[in-house]
């Protein structure tokens, strides 16, 4: 099931070029973050030789699971990038690791548990729901509800204002004043 070593292919100048490229990429990340021009997409590294043909598992169902899992796992040395997108050596190692575990018969949950055990929650692009991420996960709904409540209160208040305007006593006073003017 594992990618056979015979199919593992290296670029002409091999590992050295890969390392250099990865370093260059991290360099780009730092440089961009510290102040290059363009905000959009800035932190994404510039080239992605992500999943390589030699990594692909023979079983398409297993490979699909591997891809889905990879998309949710962070390349730890990259800027906010999943191991599925990154060509850093570490990302490659993790991709192979994920495939190894899957091939060994792990469930998706077991693979994730294995990685979290090794690298911490940092490896998950989708943070787990726990006490210190409670605020994060609750925020969208809480804010929306607060907004709805505020809007509702505001309409009620303005509704009351409308009622006040039609207040009988005020009406009488107004009528009297108008009468006074007319008289």
């Amino acid at each position, binding site marked *: 099931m594992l990618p056979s070593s015979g199919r593992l292919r290296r670029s*002409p100048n091999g590992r050295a070029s890969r390392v250099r490229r990865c370093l260059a990429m991290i360099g780009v990340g730092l440089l961009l973050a*510290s102040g290059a021009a363009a905000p959009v997409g800035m932190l994404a590294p510039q080239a992605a030789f992500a999943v390589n043909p030699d990594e692909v598992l023979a079983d398409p169902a297993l490979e699909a699971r591997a891809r889905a899992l990879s998309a949710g796992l962070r390349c730890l040395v990259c800027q906010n990038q999943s191991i599925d997108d990154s060509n850093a050596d570490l990302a490659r190692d993790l991709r192979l690791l994920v495939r190894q575990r899957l091939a060994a018969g792990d469930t998706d949950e077991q693979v994730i548990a294995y990685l979290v055990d090794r690298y911490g929650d940092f490896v998950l692009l989708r*943070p787990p729901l726990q006490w210190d991420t409670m*605020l*994060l996960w609750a925020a969208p709904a809480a804010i*929306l509800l607060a907004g709805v409540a505020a809007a509702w209160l505001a309409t009620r208040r*303005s509704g009351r204002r409308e009622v006040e305007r039609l207040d009988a006593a005020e009406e009488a006073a107004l009528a009297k004043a108008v009468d006074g003017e007319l008289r």
Partner: protein
Amino acid sequence: MIVETGHYALILALSLALIQSVLPLVGARIGDARMMETGRSTAVGGFLLLALSFTALVVAYGTSDFSVLNVFANSHSQQPLIYKLTATWGNHEGSMLLWVLILGFFGALVAAFGRDLPESLRANVLSVQAWITSAFLLFILTTSNPFTRLVPTPPEGQDLNPILQDIGLAIHPPLLYLGYVGFSIAFSFAVAALIDGRVDAAWARWVRPWTLAAWIFLTCGIAVGSYWAYYELGWGGWWFWDPVENASFMPWLSGTALLHSALVMEKRSALKIWTILLAILTFSLSLLGTFLVRSGVLTSVHAFATDPARGVFILAILCLFIGGSLALFALRASSLETGGLFAPISREGSLVLNNLFLTTAAATVLIGTLYPLFLDVLGGAKISVGAPFFNLTFGPLMVPLLFAVPFGPLLAWKRGDLLGAAQRLYAAAGAALLAVILVIAFTRGVAVLAALGIGLSAWLMVGSFVDLWERANFRRAGFRIGLSRLAGLPRSAFGTAIAHFGLGATLLGIVGASAFGTEVITTMKPGDTVAAGGYEIRFEGLSQRTGPNFTAEVGTFRLMRGNAESGTLESSRRLYTARQMPTTEAGIRTRLFSQLYLSLGDADANGGATVVRIWHKPLVTLIWLGALVMAGGGIVSLADRRLRIGAPARRRHGKAKPAGATA
């Protein structure tokens, strides 16, 4: 000499900005027309000085003057001239200068075109604008001077970061900044209104075109940035929920909300307080974006802590302006007169709904972006918040909003008829249903969600034009009268329809590319053929090429569609010699709205084989075309007569006593 002139002009601009920060404001307080008038000349003068300063830097870049540290670090004599020039803003110092230049530009526009503004309002606006200019000029002069000299002069520069040597990234920052900074006008108007203690429909009528213009630029800027990321980064992703992207997206979301709430304020003088708050928040998010990108805090909290000079300065600016304006808001907002009652089901109500969802979405992006930072600073666990989180939270917030869009323009002001609106949307509902059925019938194994997504975009695209259709009344009035009626409708109605249509197109592109895209990753030897996206793709081989400042390995592919030749496609790997940095140049073939995207992976040792990644992305170009259509809608709306003449006719003369409480 030119460089020193630029530096000197920058210092002069700061002094003018300081004068402008005080005199017009005091003039407005004591009702001195001459003092108020200084705002206009200092704004125009300051802008000219900034333009001079910026030009000096551009000249230094154009002539490859490596005695300037900034030019040395970001340019190379062999760069093509265009990238020599655009390198001016391809770095921290230069882009901050561009930021301030645009700030000055908008200030000068207010000074030049604000003749019809009430004098005290104009004076206050210009002063507030000058506070921002002063703060950022101080920042540039003390921590990020682009004019610093380097002794001795190095013979050659270090080259601009290769991935910035691209036309997309050449125009992306100016567009984005025109958007970011353009929101400063709305901010200045809001603060000026709070200082003045009064705000009326005329205020909204003034703020709306500025906001709209900024929004148009920001929309284009984000679209260009996204397309650049798509073709340059080499794996066909177009949005990454990266903090830096989020930094530009948050002001866009709240700016969009502001556009809509300003509409309510202009037409019905309701939502005044909220609109003012939103104007403050939108520019605050722009400032926050600037802080996030410029301070390096995103790379790591610790990197930020070890070299904090710039970060702390921007953080101080951030706190001063956001905190100050919010405090002022808290103090004065209650004194603003509210007005314009409306029922929940009404045009106003629908715009409130729009604001609810857009601001919640902006807040969600904000919290998602900053949460890992906060946890880290508080010494908590290190977590990542990435695309899966945003897809899970942002998506569900957008669906109800997008569903509601076609209803908005069909509801009457004050009290609308929801059922009536729904009845008039039958065509849109039919189109949506048809789209869902067609998608399910003609594709295999597609998720129901994707079909619903396509249906939603059909609903949006058809629904956007229902308002125009109804108002022209083709059915009863006949074609000719209908047409003349259509011609008589205000342009803003067309703007709304076009922009909403663009939104639907973008949605269609997003759903199409993410749900129906296919991918092939393989190793190809010359002569190999692979089928992808309806093409037969034959790899012809690799060849070496030399560019002005890079060498390239170009893969040539011959495309066949059916049995017909369909030309060749080139995809390359470049190595920029000065920095020894590789980039990919994807080969892209566009067919109607879909694209075949081919990028080269690692080359293989034996016989010129190479890893090839091929994606077929159906409808993908609609993502950006839709954004451009949205911006186009904005432009049409901006051309509306009301906005052009726009300015309030009423002119309060001279002694605009600070009216205070309930003016």
